[in-house]
């Protein structure tokens, strides 16, 4: 009994926190299901965007012992590239070649993914590889790379904060529930997020590369001694992690636009997610993303009309502190991973 409870503690803590957040949100909405539903959808939307950054960060950390502080910059780059491809007058102007904005948006997302992946290969092969045995240098170097990426973005796109102008069908569609209008695009992003959560879990559980990644998280040296080129796996995982973060930026851009702040905002929140979920735990990252996303949305709603306007931005850290007090290794982390 005690063992079962011990094994299920992370799930019980997660359920308790989510139930608490939802209950508070429902009370804060004065029992209005429409209002409550908007907060929940907004929370899931933010949680999925966080997952797109945090999943790569977590798997890269688990497998490679590298905490890359450049990961938020990949999210930012994805947002800029998607914005640029979608809108006229950018660096890559596709408005004449693909006049339909509905078709241009998937192309913009693919461009964001490709740029993220390309920059990921350059960072892993060119800069990180010589520093695998020097963790402090990795932190400093990836932080430096993040700053350089922000400066390059400023040089190309200026410091202007770009708001999404070129509307497309999915973004313009709404559905009504409990007397409230819900954005179909938000629902679409939440759906994509869940598909990715399940898809990555299936890759980790059911494919050879997934088995290699899970084994590598435990003992990289032994994986190599079995005849597997771990360095090649590092490159693949790092590149995919960067591509997913850039995809996150691209898919967030119709709501958040493109700005330099995205790099730091999403990095800090994603680091909070990875730590509270348990360093290197994929399940922890998925659960942590949803919890932090919901907590931010609930805090945003609660802060309306109060003096606590800072509440939403400090919420991820408050949740992190709460969970680390309950479980010092993070929600799904082992003592070893902490």
């Amino acid at each position, binding site marked *: 009994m005690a063992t079962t409870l011990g094994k299920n503690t992370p799930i019980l803590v997660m359920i308790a926190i989510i139930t608490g957040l939802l209950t508070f949100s429902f009370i804060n909405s004065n029992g209005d299901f429409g209002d409550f539903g908007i907060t929940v959808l907004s929370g899931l939307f933010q949680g999925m965007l966080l997952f797109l950054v945090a999943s790569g960060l977590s798997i890269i950390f688990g497998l490679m012992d590298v905490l890359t502080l450049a990961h938020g910059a990949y999210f930012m780059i994805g947002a800029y590239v998607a914005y640029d491809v979608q809108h006229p007058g950018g660096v890559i102007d596709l408005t004449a070649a693909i006049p339909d904005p509905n078709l241009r948006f998937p192309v913009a997302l693919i461009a964001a993914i490709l740029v993220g992946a390309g920059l990921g290969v350059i960072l892993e092969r060119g800069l990180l590889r010589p520093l695998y045995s020097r963790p402090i240098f990795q932190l400093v170097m990836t932080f430096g790379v993040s700053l350089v990426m922000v400066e390059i973005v400023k040089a190309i796109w200026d410091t202007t904060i770009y708001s999404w102008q070129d509307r497309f069908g999915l973004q313009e569609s709404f559905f009504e529930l409990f007397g409230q209008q819900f954005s179909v695009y938000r629902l679409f992003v939440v759906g994509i997020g869940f598909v990715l959560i399940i898809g990555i879990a299936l890759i980790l559980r059911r494919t050879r590369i997934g088995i290699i990644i*899970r*084994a590598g*998280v435990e*003992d990289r040296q032994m994986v*190599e*001694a*079995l005849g597997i080129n771990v360095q090649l796996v590092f490159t693949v995982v790092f590149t995919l992690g960067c591509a997913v973060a850039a995809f996150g930026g691209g898919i967030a851009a119709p709501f958040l636009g493109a700005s330099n702040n995205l790099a730091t905002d999403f990095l800090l929140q994603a680091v909070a997610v990875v730590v509270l979920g348990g360093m290197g735990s994929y399940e922890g990252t998925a659960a942590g993303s949803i919890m932090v996303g919901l907590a931010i949305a609930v805090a945003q709603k609660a802060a309306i009309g109060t003096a606590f306007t800072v509440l939403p931005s400090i919420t991820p850290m408050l949740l992190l502190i709460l969970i680390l007090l309950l479980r010092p290794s993070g929600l799904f982390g082992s003592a070893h991973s902490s």
Partner: protein
Amino acid sequence: MSAPVLEIRNIHTFIGQFHILEGVNVSVPQGSITVMLGRNGAGKTTTLKSVMGLTPPSQGAILFEGKPIHGKRPYHIAQLGIGYVPEHRAIFKTLTVRENLELAERQAHDLEKRIDFIFNLFPAMRQFYHYPAGNLSGGQQQMLAIARVLVPENRLLLIDEPSEGLAPVIIEELMAAIQKLAETSTVLLVEQNFRMASRLADRYVILDDGQSRVEGVMPELIKDEQLIQRYLGVA
């Protein structure tokens, strides 16, 4: 004597600033079980790790089937046909037994082709095939660690302290398995348990203070009590 499958020529290996191996020479003839003996800290494990490229030697040469392998990456050395069973097993505890074995495949369907051989060698493995490896007993984990190197067709097996921490009945089972393996592969074994080593091995090499001191055939060592007492402290 048949041609050596593995030749270690005067290797020196550093771990950090520590000079662990200071001139190790080992020759492992094809089809033999050669055991590396020596006290704790003599350099036996580091020698195996140096062969695998996990602690690459800074001097000397290592030849596998006559070709140099020192300086190559561990995965490349393994792909040449060398299987490594490390000290403390190093199985992947969060993976199932089946996943541990699948990980060792070098070509598609390797496991499918070899699974009957593995089940014949370790019949108990059939029962825990789908269990998480972390749930296995020490003896079962050791069986898995050995089974893992049998998935691809390795021509040389490096096995480090297989009897460590195991009950005598399990040790007997492992000895039978290693003897069976030697019918198709060459084995270089590190073993502290002299009784087990003397029953299994055809040849021996003794390491002391990071150097190889004596090598020869096992029946001669068994007779030489002075040598055994001097280097191994076994009466």
